[in-house]
């Protein structure tokens, strides 16, 4: 995907945004820092949504925007959209509306679902023509097996009729022929090869990245539709696609922290044989990912630190630097500082 296009879509005219962090957020690189900036920029719902794509180099992407007068760039690869950039952003966003459907891609492995679906279409399409001499796709050993098993279990069920009807209803329901054509071009089967995003881009006069984002959006919609249908013969294709909210290790730490005995971070470090700083990182990750009322901030932010933080905090807590805070509250720990920022940000969102 073209990173400069993504920077336009996910940039802002009123906030300098860290190009590196945005790339890492979309790629789903789970560090406390990336998660924090995801929260701060309102991009947490898209965390890891574009993990399966090659996103390219951030410096080159920011330079492209800068040269085209679409963004200003400051040290540390911070960028802010210009008014022309905002115009361009609106155009791009209009071609992938509504953007928030991409959040489904962060919750479920939609790319994997799309590969399974496209492969299933190929198998059913060839079967409907009674053709067994064709090159099957390969989507990884386990999913190849899954499709095989699914097909054996379901091939008596008039699958070609089912797929035809499903796609007929789904695509006409889009009420947008261009989007429906874009979706159909992702398929492949008997006598029809499908198109790559750049071939489709030439035909539709859209950018390849916009085509790919539209595919993700449409497959998300199809996935959610199928998930609601207990009768679909595609049940097996929907399994094992949930993306965990937290990393496994962070979840273990958090579960221990809120367990009946309520151990403190030092005890958890001992129990889990991990560093204390790692325990803190896990807890920050949990605080970022969970709603405000599901994280016990009061067990970690004590008085008088909390009052001191409230008194010293600037209006824009998100941009507050730890160094500045530490100058005012000398015994402040980074962990407390970050947790305070997270809770304030979440309170703001709830208001």
């Amino acid at each position: 995907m073209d990173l400069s296009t993504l920077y336009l879509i996910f940039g802002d005219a009123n906030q300098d945004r860290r190009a590196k962090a945005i790339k890492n957020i979309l790629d789903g690189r789970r560090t406390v820092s990336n998660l924090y900036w995801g929260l701060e920029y309102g991009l947490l719902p898209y965390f890891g949504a574009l993990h399966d794509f090659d996103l390219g180099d951030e410096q080159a992407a920011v330079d492209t925007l800068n040269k085209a007068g679409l963004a200003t760039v400051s040290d540390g690869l911070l960028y802010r959209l210009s008014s022309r950039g905002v115009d361009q952003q609106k155009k791009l966003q209009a071609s992938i509306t509504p953007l928030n459907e991409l959040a489904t891609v962060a919750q479920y492995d939609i790319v994997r679902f799309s590969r399974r679906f496209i492969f299933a279409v190929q198998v059913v399409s060839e079967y409907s023509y009674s053709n067994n001499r064709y090159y099957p796709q390969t989507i990884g050993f386990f999913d190849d097996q899954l499709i095989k098993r699914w097909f054996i279990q379901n091939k008596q069920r008039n699958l070609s009729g089912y797929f035809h009807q499903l796609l007929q209803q789904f695509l006409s329901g889009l009420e947008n022929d261009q989007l429906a054509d874009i979706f159909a071009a992702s398929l492949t089967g008997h006598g029809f090869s499908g198109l790559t995003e750049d071939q489709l881009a030439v035909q539709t006069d859209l950018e390849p990245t916009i085509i790919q984002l539209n595919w993700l959006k449409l497959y998300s919609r199809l996935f959610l539709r199928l998930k609601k249908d207990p009768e679909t013969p595609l049940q097996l294709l929907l399994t094992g696609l949930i993306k965990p909210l937290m990393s496994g290790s962070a979840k273990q730490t958090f579960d221990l922290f809120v367990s009946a005995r309520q151990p403190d971070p030092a005890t958890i470090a001992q129990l889990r044989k991990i560093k204390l700083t790692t325990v803190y990182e896990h807890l920050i990750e949990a605080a970022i990912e969970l709603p405000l009322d599901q994280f016990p901030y009061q067990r970690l932010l004590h008085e008088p630190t909390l009052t001191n933080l409230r008194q010293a905090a600037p209006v824009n807590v998100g941009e507050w630097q730890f160094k500045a805070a530490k100058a005012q509250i000398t015994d402040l720990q980074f962990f407390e500082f970050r947790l305070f920022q997270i809770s304030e940000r979440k309170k703001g969102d709830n208001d």
Partner: protein
Amino acid sequence: MIDLTAELHRYSGFDSFRPGQREVLENLFAGRDTLAILPTGGGKTLLYQLYGAITHQRVIIVSPLISLMQDQVSRLQYLGSKRVVAITSAMDFQERAAILRNLNHYQYIYVSPEMLSNRNIFEMIARQSIGLFVIDEAHCISEWGPDFRPDYLRLGKIRHQLENPLTLMMTATATQRTRDDILNRMGFTATDVKQLVLPTNRSNIFLSAKICANQPEKNEQLETLVKELNGAGIIYFSSKKQTEQIAAMLSQKTDKRVMAYHGGMDNQRRFLIQQQFMNGDIDIVCATSAFGMGIDKENVRYVIHYHLPDNIQSYVQEIGRCGRDQQPSLAILLYEPNDQYLQQNLIANTIPEEQLLRYFYQHPDQLQNNDAFRVIKYYYDIGKTVDQTLAIFDQAKSRRIGELNALIQYIYTTGCRRKLLLQHFDETAEHVDPEFCCDFHTDFWGNWRQFNQQYLKPSETDQGVQSTDWRQIIDKLFLLKN
């Protein structure tokens, strides 16, 4: 006595064998280990597929082409076999473990020589009953072959440890020296093994080469050719980046439908481009040598080399992808003097330098689990001194430079190109038609447009334009039964 023609029809739908196929199968059914040199497109896959299908026995195929192994699996599935799997280093641990646990479910098992050298994997394979042991691209066994792989040297021993199953060694091109070396390395004597060597010559492929002054002139020449040449074509490059650049250039400047293809692309994209090419939805593929294995397109009319391949053997293999339908086809090699330096650099990059070699000899622990340096590890493990290994590498480098020079000689030759190519394989061309041989006998470059009109027939099946309307697409995809 098995009726091989009937079995061929039963399992593949074909009515007759391609040259050499029947003889190879007869040898295998007579229990004779066989070395088969069959040209590209000669139907090597079908040999072991059919043997497995008829005997219901397990077939192990050792193949060096890790990145293409999945294509081979697809190809075998395409030919009708379903219980096929590949074990490669490209798989993650869980995938590999799952396959090894269920190995007995598979009839055709592809494995790279590196994987077979892994103790655990070897033991799992050794537990299976093996009906046929196939060594694909067998020229890799030979240090005289262009693609020497040290793990291939262990195959002789491995075969012995597998209790000497019936063995089929195959390659598209091998000189006499390479053939002798293959047998020797596998622990065979010449009398143990039935050898079947089919002529390398493909008389329906016209050979030509053009020396351009520089790259812009070469691009111009390519553009002119592509604009007018009839039918489907493949253009080969040694750089992934340039497949994309030139594909973009040709798409822009000609009305041909051109796509790039290389091993750095994801599976789905590679799959789509192969499908489109086979269905005739695109005219030309700009590709690295990764392209070819997964396609079964009979009517490719021309192959153009924009860059030099490694050597004459590779060149012959690659041009062999045109004219599988036996219709007149064209091979063009475009060359500009800087091309040889590009190729020399590629050769230099694949052979470790002295400094690196000495470093590893001082720190042998770093050779463990490092696939990039398996060749060094091989010589270190068999007790070669650093100077001996260095001498081997120098020799390998000189040999590859020598092979490259032979190819350049082919370009600059003022004689018959076919004669020169065939000499390389100790063959002579019989019944050469001077009207349709190479640009030595006729003024091809003065009359190539006429040649194009006369010989290169546009395909009738390759002119369909795919619908872009979603309703038509889903109607086409699913044949509904009333």
